[in-house]
């Protein structure tokens, strides 16, 4: 609630979903879902497999079209039918669980492709931006490598850099450590830690409860396509009010 008040003071929330419904055939995946995320805020989405975390993120950068409700970016409706999604996608980046790097391109080209083709940067400027980011995240020596020559952790860091290079206002992270060996998770999460507080708005779907608790301003528990509970990490993890949240956390902790 405090965040809502805060964002009202600075204008509209960065990202806002209002009564969003999304179905695949007869399977209703998002049900009348509403969520506001303030500028610079870090919100984690937790919930059982199939609860709709991925779908929610994909709706925000328009990889999916919603059936009902609206999605707003800075108060502007972006979910309208027939709207060109590309300007929105420039402002909202996404990183996938399976990295999805382009296997036929070098690391550097993976990063510069959209910089040159979408933002219209010159090759030199794009390469410079890629080099800066690779250096910042300890991957400078990998610029010329191809994705299959990198470890999973390195690939995922490149995927994050690829999204960051577009200088998005919002970054969506979809279980970015789920496909990684445990010893590689840390290096990827470190990148996210570094992003927090840089002004970028982060919406993070994750199964890493400890990480969600540490990094989030607010944690959002999704159940069957709706927000069952949302609050500060200490409240949601420490004193969950909703029975379904309690059940979910018990199950997660017993594993």
């Amino acid at each position, binding site marked *: 609630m405090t965040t809502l008040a805060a964002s009202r003071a600075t204008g509209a929330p960065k990202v806002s979903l209002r009564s969003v419904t999304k179905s695949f055939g007869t399977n209703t995946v998002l049900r009348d879902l509403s969520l506001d995320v303030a500028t610079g805020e870090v919100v984690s989405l937790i919930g059982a497999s199939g609860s709709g975390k991925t779908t929610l993120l994909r709706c925000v950068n328009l990889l999916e079209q919603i059936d009902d409700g609206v999605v707003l970016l800075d108060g502007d409706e972006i979910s309208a039918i027939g709207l060109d999604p590309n300007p929105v996608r420039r402002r909202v980046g996404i990183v996938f669980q399976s990295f999805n790097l382009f296997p036929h391109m070098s690391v550097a080209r993976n990063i510069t492709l*959209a910089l040159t083709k979408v933002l219209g940067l010159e090759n030199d400027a794009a390469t410079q931006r890629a080099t800066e980011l690779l250096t910042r995240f300890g991957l400078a020596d990998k610029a010329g490598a191809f994705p299959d020559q990198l470890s999973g952790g390195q690939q995922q860091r490149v995927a994050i850099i690829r999204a960051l290079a577009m200088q998005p206002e919002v970054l969506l992270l979809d279980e970015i450590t789920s496909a990684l060996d445990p010893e590689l998770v840390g290096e990827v999460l470190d990148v996210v830690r570094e992003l927090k507080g840089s002004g970028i708005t982060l919406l993070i779907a994750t199964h890493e409860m400890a990480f969600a608790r540490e990094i989030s301003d607010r944690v959002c528990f999704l159940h069957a396509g709706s927000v069952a509970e949302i609050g500060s990490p200490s409240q949601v993890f420490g004193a969950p009010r909703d029975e379904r949240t309690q059940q979910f956390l018990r199950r997660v902790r017993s594993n």
Partner: protein
Amino acid sequence: MALGLHRRSGHQPRLTTRQEHERQQRRRSSFIAAASTFVVLVAVAVFIPRMPRWDRVKKSFFDVNQMRDSFPRLIDAFWLDVKIFVWTTPAIFIAALLIALARNSRSPALFPVRMLAAAYTDVMRGVPVILWIYLVGFGVPGLGLERPFNSPLLWGSVALGMTYSGYVAEVFRAGIDSVHESQRAAARSLGLSSAQTMRHVVLPQAIRRVVPPLLNDMVSLQKDVALVSLIGPIEILRQAGIDKAKFANFTPFVVAALIFLSVTIPLTRLTDYLWHRERRRTSGTRVAA
């Protein structure tokens, strides 16, 4: 083989038991392969000449003087096959790519285009090549066009290109379909348009994957070029027919076959090699046995 192996393992003079075992296995299979080839060749060399009519067959199919006489003419005529092949191939690739892209378009507004492209590939692939060559090669010049647009050579090549672009379009389409949807998602999420995604992300991966089947189609095309002879142009098959009629000897056909083989076998080997390389790259580590 054994020598090379020896030299390579020079640093570690002693082979492990396993390496020793594998080496023996390799030697054994090379020996079996060589021995069985030898047996077959001996059988052919011994038994075929004993066939009752071998002398006649030898004279009419393997006449060395006839070979010498026909060879230069056949090679000359083969040049036309090569030319037809060389000018149809790029046209086929371009047409096929456009058809494949049309079939893969996703916009609902382009439904008629998708239907048309699908109909085209079905019709082209549903009729024997030779029939298209007759229909187009005789039909279109029959319209009374002016030179050079009445040449059977031209329209025969067009017929060949039409059918083959149907086949090659399907190969491209399979390649495009084989690129995982998540690659498109990644590209689109960065703000690339669907055309840019196709051009920079999907097609480069798709084409790399279909190089072997494409080469396969090229090997077939290389042979089917000879069908154009059936509507007039004097390429190698027709020249061999002329020689055969003139000298009452089938040797020119054997020579023509050898000339074809000299082109198709290297192409086929290359295809196989690329195929294996692609398989190794994409199908993970081979199981031992």
